[in-house]
């Protein structure tokens, strides 16, 4: 993690941007895939028929954006740290559904969210200490 750029080039900021793009694309993909679902067609196992949906194309644009940020992150951060942190997506998506869509979260799901947050804290804490020393 030597020579880490600051400002827009900060790898942690880029990791955040990548995560936001992924979250939005997940919703777009599910909507798009549902809109054009053809479960009876064997060809649709390839997913290529999904390209008929404009939502899927928007999702692809966001995925490309998140991918560029992600490659940049990989240049500076070890995969053992960056990849687990990127899975904060799995907490933010259900929390977003709860806050914005009024969906209910079961007790078991809250436990799962808590486990992910504890895991993220374990992965992130040593980095926070390294950053402080720099």
């Amino acid at each position: 993690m030597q020579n880490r750029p600051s400002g827009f080039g900060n790898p942690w900021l880029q990791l955040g941007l990548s995560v936001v793009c992924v979250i939005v694309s997940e919703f777009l993909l599910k909507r798009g895939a549902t809109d054009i679902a053809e479960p009876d067609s064997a060809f649709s196992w390839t997913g290529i028929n999904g390209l008929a949906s404009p939502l899927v194309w928007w999702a692809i644009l966001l995925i490309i954006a998140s991918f560029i940020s992600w490659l940049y992150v990989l240049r500076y951060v070890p995969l053992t740290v960056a990849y687990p942190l990127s899975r904060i997506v799995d907490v933010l998506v259900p929390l977003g559904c709860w806050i914005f869509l009024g969906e209910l979260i079961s007790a078991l799901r809250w436990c799962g969210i808590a486990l992910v947050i504890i895991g993220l804290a374990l992965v992130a804490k040593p980095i926070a200490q390294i950053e402080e020393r720099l």
Partner: protein
Amino acid sequence: MSILAFFFIVVSLLSFVLAQLILKRAMEFSATNGLRNSRFVSLAATGIALMTVSFFLTLGLLQRFDLSYLYPFQGLSVIFITLLAAMVLKEKLSARLTLGALLITAGIVLVSMS
């Protein structure tokens, strides 16, 4: 779940995990050797091709199953990628990082099963 669905879920997960490892290697290589050399281009192209395979297989699966059903399998990628990055890419893996990755994996599986 049919055998066919299980097959596509496994192939999609494997190609995603492999892609991440190859892309990490490509970016490490580019940090010392720059972007304009054939090794970087072939590594990055392989990684992107594997990501594309995984993307379209997931799109095919999403037409048949709920996102919440498919998500636990994506969650498994955390522990696979962490362990393989340590083994294949020789990244340092502390007990703390392993425990963190295990908790995140378990949490994702719980969230999507409930």
